[in-house]
Structure formats: structure tokens, C-alpha cells
């Protein structure tokens, strides 16, 4: 029996020690072992799906693609369009033809030249229905013939308005003017891929391939993919072939997929991270007091709102929708609940987006809210039917919903029921319009007020409110043909007037992104799309 017992203990010990695989220590703790190279340690949110621009859909992936790839155009720190892979371009007077001239020194990370044919082949792949790219609409909504090709009505790509006139000239022809196209082109849906590499590792229409793995991946951006250990680290190394490499100052960026803001904050304190993706809201005030130099809060191109289902009672009555919107103290909400310097929203578009400012806003007005509610048949909230507010299960949304619930009880005498659902169930209910009113948010894919007006087009894929207005739709399309931005923005002002009168959604605040940044990081800034042009950043020794 002693033998058996000894054996048992030996197995337990073996389990304990035998499996200890010794991995080479990465340079995670920069504090203890200062490297001669400039290495930035960056918290990148969730684990990225992939780095194939035709496959991915999220923000962490967007940041990675900006690290490893570059589109035809780029954006400077003021969000103005600057040259990227294209050194210059011309737009035809009717706004329908864009001719891009690629730079002569544009190279892929394997040394190949970046050509106009690469872009055309990338877009052909993206529009191939078999690949099922989720952002294909970013192309087929604008480009001549692209929708027919995507729908399989033709297999002849020469019918699509994407053509390489020669190795350095790309011509894009649109179905209707899209004044925001250059900004939209800074979205990764328009980034090129190295077609020969994609072909080599599984083919052009295969979603699950290994072409994006370290060692295989070829990109044209400021950094190259050196290492990717899923759920642990992605190492980006300065590209020796990038055309603007002289401007790139940081040698290596280590991107960590970290889901918990608290974990990030602890890593920041031990020096494992130079830049975090978030800050735990409960610690924001402490950091502001004790380390204000590390706290950075930037505007984020998004709107937090509640969406009404205008076909469900009681929100089929515009007076009820407006009453709820007017009875909220948004200043108090952002100051006491959301805590990260969000701006209260009294309109439908984040302000000062490429110079657009709403002329029409509403304001909190309790008297008017009570009058509207009484006119709708619910004086002092009497007889108000059950109204369920749906939100996805997250502490922040719950807290906001509870605050608003209290405001409506106090100000209007109506009691809202809070209902939470797991994310995908909640989204499913949203898209099937199985809700009375629900929490929602919208983060733009690119910088232009159009993104926020496009949302509420009648029957639009992301409208989900059952609201529609023929005049609004007409203005939306008229705006696209406007000769210049001031003319286009004037039309948007009219559209915003309609939205305020009809209130299909209840705007609450515009998002911000709060993060911790080590003072040794210089020249780093976040764009309103929450991505970072790395080539402007530097690290102090």
C-alpha cells in the first residue's frame, strides 16, 4: 500500500512540475530590463479576430490594420485627408471619378512594389460573394457595377468601376457623388492586401487561411507583423520598406489583448503598459487627482442614445417620445454617472465633425415635457402603460438606465421597467424590432456627419426604429449631390430639424475615450475613430 500511495503522490508531483513548459520571457516588463530599442507597450482591448481587412469588423482590428497596412489616403492629426499609398489624386468635376496616382516608392514588406493592380485585385476579392466580406457594402454602395458583381449578376470584373490604368494609376468610378469618399477610404475596407500571399495560403475566396499569420503576412504599412501569440501579445516591428519610414520613430509596438480595464490599470502601474485601452471609471477620479499627467480623455465619434420603436405603444406618439427626451438632466448624467467627460447630446451628430455644427438643438424643459405627456393622455404620468427599456447586460448601461428611470419617475411620474439581455439576444431583439425602447450606441466607421444621418433612412439596415420620413430620405440623397460641404451641411441642418421634431431616438451623450498614457510617450494622439497613426508617436528615453 505504501507503494501505491507513493505512486499517487508521485503522479501529483509530476503533474505539478513536469508540465512547466519554459517559454522564453518576452520583454513584457520593460522597467526591469531596459531595452536599447524603443518599444511601446499598448493595451489593445479584445483579442483581434484576424488582420485580414476583408474579414474583420472591430476596433482592435482597425488599430492593427492601421499598424500593418495603409490605404490610398490617410488622415493627419486634424483629420484632414493626406496622401497615403497614393501620393496625389484628382476628382472629376461631377464628383463621380477619382483618379489616384500611387507613389513610386510604395513597397510591400517583402519588397514588392505596391501597384494599382494590387488595389484592383484586393477589391475584386472583397466583392467576391463567396468570400462573404461583411464590409463589402462600403464598396458596392458607391462603385459602379460593384453591386451587380457582388450579387453574382456578372462575373466580369471589368464591368466594375475599379480599374488600373497602369501600375501607378487607379481609377474609381462612382454611381453617385460621395463627398465623404476620401474619409471613407481611410477605413480598412479600402486597404490593399498582398494578393500573391493570399493566393499562396489557401486562395482568394477562402475565409479560414493562414496568410495573416506571422511569417506569412505581407503588408504595406509602417509596421510588420513579427509575432502573434493569441490572447497574449502581438509584436509589430518597424517596417524597413515603408515609404515614410523616416518618420516612424518607435522600433516596436507590443499590442496586448486585455479585456479588463482593471487588469490594464494594474499593468500600467507596474510599467507593463505605456498606453491603456480604457480606465476603470471608479479609478478615474483618483488618477485625475494624483496623476493628472497620465489621464487622457479624447472625443470619440459616437452617440449613446435610446431607440424608440415608433410602432409600439406608447412610443407611437411623438409627444411621448419628446416628453421623455425633454425630461432628462443630461449634465447630471455625464457628471455623476458616466464620469468620463462625455458631452451631453441635444442633437443627433457629434459636434464639430469636419466643421459640422448643429444649429438645431433641443433642451431639457420639464414644463414642456409635462405638457406633452398630458396632451398624449397621461397627465402627471397617470395611465401610462408599461414601458420596457431594453439594455444589454453591462454595469454601465444598467447604471445609466437606473438614473434615467429615477429622472422620469421624479419629473414625469412615469415608471419605466428595466429589462436586460445578453448581448446577442439583445441585438437579435433589436434587429427583429422586438422591443419598446432600447439602449443603443453608434460609432462611426469614418469621419463625416453623413454616417449619422444615413442611419435613419426609411428601412435602413441599422434604423431599427420603424421610423421613416419621405422628406428626410429625399434630403439625405440630395445632400450627396451638393456641390460643396457648406451646401451639404445646410441640408443636414434641415434633416436635424426633422429628427428633433420627430425624435425617433433619444440622444443622451457623445462618447469619449479615457485612457492612461505614460508621460514617456510623446506625440501620441487618438483620432475620433479611436485609432492611432503610429508614425507620429515617439518614446522619451
Amino acid at each position: 500500500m505504501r507503494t501505491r500511495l507513493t505512486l499517487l503522490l508521485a503522479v501529483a508531483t509530476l503533474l505539478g512540475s513536469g508540465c512547466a513548459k519554459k517559454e522564453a520571457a518576452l520583454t513584457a516588463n520593460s522597467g526591469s530590463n531596459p531595452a536599447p530599442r524603443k518599444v511601446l507597450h499598448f493595451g489593445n482591448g479584445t483579442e483581434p479576430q484576424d488582420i485580414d481587412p476583408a474579414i474583420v469588423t472591430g476596433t482592435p482590428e482597425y488599430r492593427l490594420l492601421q499598424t500593418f497596412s495603409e490605404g490610398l489616403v490617410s488622415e493627419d492629426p486634424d483629420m484632414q485627408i493626406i496622401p497615403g499609398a497614393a501620393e496625389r489624386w484628382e476628382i472629376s468635376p461631377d464628383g463621380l471619378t477619382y483618379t489616384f496616382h500611387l507613389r513610386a516608392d510604395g513597397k510591400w514588406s517583402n519588397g514588392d512594389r505596391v501597384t494599382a493592380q494590387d488595389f484592383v485585385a484586393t477589391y475584386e476579392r472583397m466583392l467576391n460573394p463567396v468570400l462573404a466580406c461583411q464590409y463589402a457594402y462600403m464598396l458596392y454602395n458607391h462603385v459602379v457595377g460593384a453591386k451587380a458583381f457582388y450579387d453574382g449578376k456578372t462575373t466580369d470584373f471589368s464591368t466594375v468601376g475599379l480599374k488600373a490604368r497602369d501600375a501607378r494609376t487607379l481609377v474609381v468610378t462612382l454611381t453617385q457623388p460621395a463627398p465623404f469618399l476620401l474619409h471613407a477610404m481611410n477605413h480598412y475596407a479600402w486597404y490593399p492586401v498582398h494578393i500573391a500571399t493570399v493566393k499562396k495560403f489557401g486562395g482568394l475566396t477562402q475565409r479560414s487561411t493562414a496568410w495573416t499569420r506571422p511569417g506569412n503576412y505581407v503588408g504595406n504599412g509602417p509596421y510588420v507583423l513579427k509575432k502573434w501569440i493569441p490572447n497574449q501579445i502581438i509584436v509589430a516591428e518597424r517596417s524597413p520598406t515603408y515609404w515614410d519610414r523616416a518618420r516612424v520613430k518607435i522600433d516596436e509596438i507590443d499590442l496586448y489583448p486585455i479585456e479588463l480595464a482593471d487588469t490594464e490599470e494594474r499593468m500600467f502601474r507596474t510599467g507593463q503598459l505605456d498606453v491603456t485601452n480604457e480606465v476603470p471609471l471608479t479609478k478615474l477620479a483618483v488618477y485625475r487627482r494624483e496623476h493628472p499627467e497620465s489621464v487622457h480623455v479624447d472625443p470619440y465619434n459616437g452617440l449613446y442614445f435610446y431607440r424608440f420603436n415608433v410602432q409600439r405603444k406608447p412610443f407611437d406618439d411623438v409627444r411621448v417620445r419628446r416628453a421623455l427626451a425633454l425630461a432628462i438632466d443630461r449634465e447630471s448624467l455625464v457628471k455623476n454617472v458616466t464620469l468620463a467627460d462625455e458631452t451631453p447630446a441635444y442633437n443627433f451628430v457629434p459636434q464639430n465633425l469636419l466643421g459640422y455644427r448643429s444649429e438645431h438643438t433641443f433642451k431639457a424643459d420639464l414644463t414642456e415635457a409635462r405638457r406633452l405627456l398630458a396632451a398624449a393622455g397621461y397627465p402627471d404620468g397617470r395611465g401610462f402603460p408599461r414601458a420596457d427599456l431594453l439594455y444589454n447586460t453591462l454595469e454601465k448601461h444598467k447604471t445609466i438606465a437606473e438614473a434615467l428611470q429615477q429622472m422620469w419617475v421624479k419629473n414625469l411620474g412615469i415608471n419605466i421597467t428595466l429589462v436586460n439581455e445578453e448581448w446577442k439576444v439583445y441585438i437579435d431583439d433589436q434587429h427583429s424590432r422586438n422591443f419598446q425602447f432600447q439602449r443603443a450606441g453608434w460609432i462611426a466607421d469614418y469621419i463625416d456627419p453623413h454616417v449619422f444621418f444615413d442611419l435613419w433612412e426609411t428601412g435602413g439596415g441599422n434604423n431599427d426604429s420603424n421610423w421613416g420620413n419621405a422628406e428626410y430620405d429625399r434630403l439625405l440623397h440630395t445632400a450627396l449631390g451638393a456641390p460643396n460641404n457648406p451646401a451639404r451641411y445646410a441640408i443636414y441642418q434641415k434633416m436635424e430639424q426633422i429628427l428633433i421634431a420627430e425624435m425617433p431616438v433619444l440622444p443622451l451623450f457623445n462618447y469619449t475615450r479615457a485612457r492612461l498614457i505614460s508621460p514617456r510617450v510623446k506625440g501620441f494622439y487618438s483620432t475620433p475613430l479611436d485609432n492611432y497613426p503610429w508614425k507620429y508617436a515617439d518614446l522619451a528615453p
Partner: protein
Amino acid sequence: MLRFIARRLLETIPVLFIIVTATFFMIRFVPGGPFTAEKAVTPEVMRNLERAYNLDQPLWRQYAGYLGKVVFHGDLGPSFKYPNRTVNEIIADKLPVSLELGAISLALALAVGLPLGVLAAIKRNTWLDYLCSSVAMIGICVPTFVLGPLLVLTFAIHYGWFNASGWYGPIDRVLPSLTLGCVYAAYVARLTRGGMLEVLNQDYIRTARAKGASEVRVIFRHALRGGLLPVVSFLGPAIAGILTGSFVIETIFQIPGLGREFVNSAFNRDYTLVLGTVILYAALLIGLNLVVDIVQVWLNPKLKFE
């Protein structure tokens, strides 16, 4: 014994089949799918996506296709969420990490829990027993999401001995293993104490003492064997749980283990990854329960392989 093992292994096949079938259909009937996203996917794109993953086919055909691939090729399919990785690769990458974390934690749990339990049983109703039992109770009550950050605050941030999180060098194994190990150590201590107390009251222990055996010999030679039985029963499912990872520990310490995939795959409706992790967990659970049964017969002369 071989017949016993062979019979048990044969019984495993229908059990696994039922688990796979139930999981396959349950996850399909949950609202939302792998491509349900806040930004609505246009109907054309959705059609193509479903075609790309064979989701446009009747459910029975998808099921038959999946089962065929798993049984005949051991192919768990591509992940929906991470298209450039297959489920086999994800498990192969992450299981060793969870295994390593689990093994160290388990060794720690046994090294601490067993002596504490034995000590508490021998010194029953003394201050030592109360101390050991209280420590064990605290270990069970303090959740890992409290203990983990506390350890990080103390040893990583205050003393600077460790990284706050990550899984890079051997030193990064310390805090997560300690956190996970403490919980299991507490259970092991409680179970060992209970098991030992029961055994120490048995006649054969009295006989051993009457024959003049030393207390050390009584405890380690005669009592411990029987006292360990509840611990062994507990260790079967515990090892399966520990090896398939701990969601909380892996999230707090940023460990690339399988535990997070277990939970996140369900949230992501990553059908193939959900099935892959469930199959793995079920197989481990069944396998380890078999091992537990064998060990129990081995330790307890009253039991036989039947």
C-alpha cells in the same frame, strides 16, 4: 480490471454522442448567431456568410456533416470568431497553458491542503484544528476575483516582485497558480479533515494503536489511505475543471488559456468552438472519473472492479 476499463470506455461513446448532439442543437436554438452584430449585416452579405459556413443547409445535414468530420477526421472545424484558426489549433494552443496553470495549482493545493487537513483531524477540536479549518473556510469563501487582484496589489504593485499580469516567463506562473491553488487547497483541506476523522474512528485504527503502532505510523500507514478517499472523488471533476481552465483567473491575469474560450465562445455564438470545448471537457470529465474509480478501488480494499 481491463474488462472494467473497456466496458467503461464503451459506455463513454453514447454519453459523448448525447452531449455533442444536445450541445449542437441547444447552441443553434439560442437567439443570435455568430454574425449577429450591432452594425446590421446586409441580407446579401448574410446569405453569403451562411453559405461560406454551410449554415444555409438544413440543420440535420449540418449536424451529420459536423459529426462525420469529428468522428472520422478528428476535425472540429474552423472557428467562426477567429477565421484564421481552427478549433483544433485553438485547443492545441491553449490547453497546454491551462494544463500548466492547473497542474501547478493542483500540486500547490495538495501540498498545502493535505497536511492542513491531516493536522486539523489529528488535533481535532483544538486551536490548531480551528485555525486550519478557518483558513480553509476563508480559502473557500474568498472568490478568486478578490484574491487575485489582492495578490497583484501586494506582490506586483507594492513589492514589484512580479508582473501584474501576463504569461511570459516562469515567474508569471506564481500569482495565478497561488490564486487558483488556494481555492482548491481549501477544499482539499476540508475533505481530508472529514475523511481522516471518519477513518480515525474506525476499529482497525484502534487495533493498530492497541498493537502499539506509533501515532505517525497510524496516521500515515493506516489512516491516510482511507482518509484520502473523499479527496480522490473530488479530484476527478476538479482536475477536469482545472485543466480546462479558469475563466476568472485567465481574465484577471491575462493568461492565454482555454477557460476564456469556454465562456467567450458561447457569448460569441462560435458554434464550432463551443462544441470543441464541450467535447474536450466531457471527454476529460469522463476519463478522469474513470481514473478516480480505479484509484478508489486501489486505495479501498472494500471496493472491487465490477
